[in-house]
């Protein structure tokens, strides 16, 4: 497979043409390939991910950032981008330095895959998907099973006019199965999904036992009555706890929101926001994490950043600009969805650190309420500090015992009240980082890991 490094000279040459016109410029080039497979009862679809490649050039214009980008890494496409960029730069661009500290490091990194992207044949993938599909249908009462198996390999090359040079290649693999049950026009489903930085070995997590469990749950959901609504004790499963950490808390720690006075957390930096057994972390260097990166799109290395340390809100996530304003260092969290998208401060893998409760102990502690399982999505509200998380199913807790499964629910309420209401966090053996995609606003989707263990608190739940 050709490497992005093969066209590095052309990109560097293009960047040098901008240098005389600005105090700082950088280039980020990207190339991605991948495989996808989708199989269900009616069709089998095998595909290759679109081979999309290109480069974005960013320069400081003296008072704002200016960017141009183009698909294609040929000399003509690169020159067109650079010419357009130079056209936008005035004399101010040379006189005034950009905000913050420019990364100057260099290095090359590659993710490790036990079963690399190109080593697992289509026949193998197809056989695996077919076996899982047939297994789900064999459970009886299942009308369809949708299996998705996807893997991608993405290269990024970062160069700047102050000498930074970073290259990385990251493979990500993800597998999922949704079992679908139908009756009298009603359709219900449940799912499992696994994804990591790494190769096809990730698919080993799609075990027979989990597939059969999902099939049984889909059938049960078809018969489930309505779930209770209102304020009550809730236990979040590990994936849902991770989404809480990401959507409800994490977005408020992206420092560009603080610069805009758009974070409810801004006045709380340095304060206790939760119990002493609660620690929240963003870690772009987490081994095999779905959202892990080696360097960000300003050339800074990824790192572990503790956001809440034993209940105290201690740090936020910075790009070069916010780091300068807050007199901190950049945290390696500046990410672009791709070369077509602008950079923002973004999370990587955001999670709740494990505690010391078993699930059984948490259920008994809750006594009555709901266990919220299989998070399907969440959305941020960085200024209002409200939360909204949707789960595929909710299991009743009655007198300290887990009861029958109920339909999809939405969790809402004030994040800070939820944090202060946390009464227990599950043990490390239940810790999971789930694969997801995060948007900033309604676009710019990036891979983001959300993780945690079981977590008990109190919240408002309703139908969804």
């Amino acid at each position, binding site marked *: 497979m050709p490497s992005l490094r093969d066209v590095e000279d052309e990109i560097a040459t293009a960047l040098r043409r901008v240098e005389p016109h600005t105090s700082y410029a950088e280039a980020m080039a990207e190339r991605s390939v991948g495989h996808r497979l989708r199989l269900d009862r009616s069709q089998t679809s095998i595909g290759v991910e679109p081979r999309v490649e290109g480069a974005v050039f960013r320069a400081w214009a003296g008072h704002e950032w200016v960017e141009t980008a183009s698909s*294609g890494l040929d000399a003509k496409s690169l020159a067109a981008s650079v010419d357009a960029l130079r056209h936008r730069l005035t004399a101010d661009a040379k006189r005034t330095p950009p905000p913050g500290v420019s990364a100057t490091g260099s290095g090359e990194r590659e993710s490790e895959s036990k079963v690399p992207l190109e080593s697992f044949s289509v026949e193998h993938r197809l056989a695996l998907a077919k076996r899982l599909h047939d297994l789900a249908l064999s459970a009886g009462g299942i*009308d369809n099973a949708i299996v998705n198996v996807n893997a991608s390999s993405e290269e990024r090359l970062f160069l700047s006019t102050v000498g930074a040079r970073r290259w990385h290649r990251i493979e990500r693999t993800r597998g999922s199965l949704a079992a*679908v049950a139908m009756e009298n026009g009603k*359709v219900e489903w449940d799912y499992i999904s696994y994804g990591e930085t790494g190769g096809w070995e990730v698919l080993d997590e799609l075990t027979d036992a989990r597939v059969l469990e999902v099939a049984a749950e889909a059938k049960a959901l078809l018969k489930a009555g309505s779930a209770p609504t209102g304020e009550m004790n809730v236990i979040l499963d590990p994936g849902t706890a991770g989404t809480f950490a990401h959507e409800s808390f994490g977005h408020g720690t992206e420092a560009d929101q603080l610069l*805009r006075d*758009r974070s409810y957390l801004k006045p709380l930096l340095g304060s206790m926001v939760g119990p002493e057994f609660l620690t929240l972390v963003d870690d772009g260097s987490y081994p095999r994490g779905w959202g892990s990166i080696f360097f960000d799109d300003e050339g800074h290395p990824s790192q572990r950043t503790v956001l809440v340390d034993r209940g105290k809100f201690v740090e936020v996530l910075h790009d070069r600009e916010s780091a300068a304003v807050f007199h901190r260092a950049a945290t390696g969290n500046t990410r672009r969805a791709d070369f077509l998208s602008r950079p923002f401060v973004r999370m990587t893998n955001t999670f709740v650190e494990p505690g010391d409760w078993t699930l059984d102990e948490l259920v008994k502690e809750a006594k009555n309420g709901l266990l919220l399982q299989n998070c399907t999505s969440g959305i941020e509200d960085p200024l*209002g500090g409200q939360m909204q998380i949707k789960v595929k199913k909710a299991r009743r807790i009655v007198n300290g015992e887990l009861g029958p499964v109920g339909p999809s629910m939405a969790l809402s309420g004030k994040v800070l009240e939820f944090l202060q209401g946390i009464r227990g966090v599950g043990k490390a053996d239940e810790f999971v980082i789930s694969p997801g995609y995060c948007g900033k606003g*309604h676009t710019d989707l990036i891979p983001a890991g959300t993780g945690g263990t079981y977590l008990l608190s109190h919240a408002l739940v309703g139908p969804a």
Partner: protein
Amino acid sequence: MSEPTFEADTAFRAADEVRRRGLAGAWDLFGERAERYEVHLNGTTREYLRAPIRLEGVGLRVLRPRDGKMSIGFAATSDRSPESLARAIEDAEATARYSRFPATTSELPASAGSPDSVESIDRDAWANPLESLDRYVHALVSAFEGRDGVVPSFGSVHLTLAESTLANSAGLEHRSSRTLFDFEVAVKAFGGPEGRPPGEYWVTSRGVRVDPTHLKSDVDTWCDRAKDVRIAKPPSAGEQTVVLPPRVLTDVLPEILSYRFSGAASIRGIAPKAGDPVGTDRVSIWNDPKYPHAIGSSAVDDEGSPTAKTALVAAGRAESTLYDLLHGSAAGHPSTGSGLRDTMTYPGWDFFAVPVNPMATTLVVGSGDIASDAELAEAAGDGIWVDQLGYAFPDPLSAAFGGEIRIGYRIRHGKIAEPLRGGTVGGVVIGGADDRSVLNSVVGLGRRTELTAHLACPALVVEKMGVGGAD
């Protein structure tokens, strides 16, 4: 990029190369050449100018009849070199070897005919994209001037000008252009002696025209909403009558109904059959692919088939289904001109990289007879007017949706009363005949139709919706 030149030839050049390489059997190529312009605001200050962002690429589909079914291969690339196209051909053929789809014919249209003209191009934006965007941003920022305690905290506007080309093995060559304009703005209300926390109203919009005409009055409304957020309280829990305006329904109905009434749902047994009762007799829904000034409106779909209105629900009963060529073949039905390379989920612009699927262009819900917002509230009696959900989380499979009320209003005795925030509203859009789906619970429809992204509809008054709120 100036006014549409209709000279883009991405797919045609690729088609020449494909023919030169002797690719046999049925194939089609979708090419795209696009430029995007963006302005990002921090408050009222421009912090980012992105101009232009250029994207060009081609998607190749091959159709191979095999054992009574169809094998479909697909590959897309932004590298237009002959070597890259050769690799795309290899990829498409390789993937086709393993794919199976229950279509029986691979006949592609030889001509798009002489399609009607559909007005979906903003010519001023094409002629002067950056100036057009600057004028809009200036109008947006100006609309906030002089306001006390309300500011935009951030915003971004995006203008995309895309030229598409389509070629296939039957000899079709077709060009089209589209304008996409979308923006998001967060409006913050703050200050005041009472020391309340600030409130935010987040606005997103997608369309095809860079038109600042109504910005001033829109900003008035956004500012009022942001102020109301500060004093809003959660609703009470239980089943209630809910008014859902178009800006809420636009995140719910297209994604669910476009799938449930498509050939893709039909071959999986979850599309309603013609004649099935799916809603009250007040409910009629159709797809209008030529709706004026709507996203994707075109006389020809992305496979080269002519588009036409398709009735989906007539007076509460399922009527017909949306097909592209292949899903139509699987069902023994001609294409309804609904083969599109788009998604309802997020505003993408890399259409060449998206495989064809049957879907709606613009879903239209027939209007009713309730003339004004005041009369809609009166029709609801007691209940909730939902102005904005955090996100509706539409699930096409189960047809369920639901989300947190970011801002809404209590309706008391037929009048709009105090603001609400928090709690959730949700339900199932479409289900069986005897269920309590939204379509089965519509008791009133507004007279005024509003176009928002892929939906043109009036406000709906829906009874007995589940509301999660304070006890």
